[in-house]
């Protein structure tokens, strides 16, 4: 059974006003435990709206969200419990830091779960370790951290709830290459250690290619593709039509294919691409 499944979700902003906007129209997909799913789509394709429905912050006008097979909207009293299980990290989460110390801020979620103090302390330390925040920073004010540290502290605040499904909305936006690499490594580490499913929204195809087991492509609020990165990135023309690009290495291989070379379509990692080019050279493939 999938840990989280969305069934024909629809959401319209400002229903019945001149500002009406259909953000998500009939999106369905299911995520298995331990899976990493990349969500891509151009600006305004409904990604952020979709992820906010998955933990019940937005109530879809139609459609259901099942967490472990149970409808999260069925019982309003259990909604909070669902939010602890489906952890959502918003865009620019560092703007939500508020507490006196980093430790207290990371502990905000676990404290809301009414956990005993020693358990809270354990979770805070563990989450800080996953995101790579040194212990001595825990006693500092979150506002004294650097940008990248703030981002990691904010993500730790969600990880400390130890959610079964972790959702991140553009976790690497605005970070330098090193900060980006740290966040991606952290996502992978949490996924591996806890066996939780991870969904992450990204505009960066390299990030999506590096991390995802499957990719969900949204276009104008509908599901365009939901498949392995290889199958999705083999559709470079369709993606271009949705103002999306494929990873740079895929573009290079597509260019070779355009010259009449028999390249295996949909390769998206640098390693695979290198192996493919070496193979082609050995076989003496030349433009026809």
């Amino acid at each position, binding site marked *: 059974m999938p840990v989280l499944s969305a069934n024909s979700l629809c959401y319209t902003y400002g229903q019945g006003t001149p500002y009406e906007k259909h953000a998500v129209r009939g999106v369905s997909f299911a995520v298995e435990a331990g899976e990493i799913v990349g969500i891509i789509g151009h600006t305004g394709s409904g990604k952020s709206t979709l992820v906010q429905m998955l933990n019940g912050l937005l109530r879809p006008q139609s459609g259901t969200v099942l967490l472990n097979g149970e409808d999260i909207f069925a019982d309003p009293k259990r909604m909070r419990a669902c*939010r*602890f299980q489906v*952890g959502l990290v918003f865009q620019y989460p560092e*703007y939500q830091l*508020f507490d006196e110390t980093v430790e207290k801020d990371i502990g905000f979620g676990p404290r809301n779960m009414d956990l005993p103090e020693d358990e809270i302390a354990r979770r805070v330390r563990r989450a800080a370790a996953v995101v790579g925040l040194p212990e001595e920073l825990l006693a500092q004010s979150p506002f004294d951290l650097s940008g990248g540290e703030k981002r990691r502290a904010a993500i730790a605040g969600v990880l400390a709830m130890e959610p079964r499904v972790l959702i991140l909305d553009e976790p690497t936006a605005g970070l330098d290459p090193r900060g980006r690499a740290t966040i991606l490594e952290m996502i992978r580490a949490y996924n591996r250690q806890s066996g939780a499913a991870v969904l992450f929204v990204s505009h960066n195809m390299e990030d999506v290619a590096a991390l995802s087991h499957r990719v969900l492509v949204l276009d104008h609020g509908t599901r365009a593709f939901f498949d392995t990165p290889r199958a999705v990135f083999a559709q470079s023309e369709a993606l271009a039509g949705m103002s999306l690009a494929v990873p740079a290495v895929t573009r290079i291989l597509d260019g070779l294919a355009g010259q009449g070379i028999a390249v295996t379509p949909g390769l998206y990692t640098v390693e695979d691409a290198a192996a493919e080019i070496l193979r082609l050279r050995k076989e003496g493939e030349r433009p026809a």
Partner: protein
Amino acid sequence: MSALLNDITFGQYYPGNSVVHRMDPRAKVVLTVAAIVLIFLARVAVAVACTVVFTAAAVALTRMPVKLYLKTLKPIIPIIILTSVINALYVSSGTVVVHVWQITITTGGLLTALYMAVRICLLIITSSLLTYTTSPTQLTDAIERLLSPLALLRLDVHTLAMMMTIALRFIPTLIEETEKIMAAQKARGADLDSGGLMRRVKALVPVLIPLLISSFRRAAELADAMECRCYHGGKDRTRMRQLHLSARDWLAFAVTAAVFGAVVAANQMASGLLYALFTGGAL
């Protein structure tokens, strides 16, 4: 755009292309003030009826769903009921309708209560008509122009207007920001809408602190952006959109003046009539 934003209808611009939308914002501000004076001037049935017809005609001219105007009345229903009850109980004139124990309700009291309720409704509808049909930029533009004579008193009208524009401009931004932060803290299990007063106030801390910090950040960024574009206050500034009074504005002035005359005349006639009745009765 957001759910919270949708709930706030009073004072929100509703785009359209009606005659009222196209009027000069200065004329609209002046006429709204005139209409409010008019609503409070009307004392007798005929005069109150005049103001009702006048307001209804203005609403019809905006070509907007009447439902939107009724929605603005909803939050003030308790006020209307309260003032009506107080008026009905305390004003005693005319014949007695009900007399139970200490409570006496007269026809005069009921009439005053009704007039008061109608006045409050008209007041709200008239002011929302202005904000519905005038964008915040137009509104501050109009206010700046209307207040410009105060510059003679060494009052910095331009800066005041700019502050107002910025404040209005940032209301939706701040609402959006508040919602985002609330959603983020809710995602961490914050319980923002249950418990007693103290608990709720405490629960708001995780929302208010990030909001305050981001407001300061935004203010600094905006100041930088304005300086980068060489903003240096009102002196020698020219405008992209010049305001012009057109035929429809003059027509609106004329109609309002006519209604004004009618209301004053109706009030006068009624008091004259009463005077005649009183003196006639005394003789």
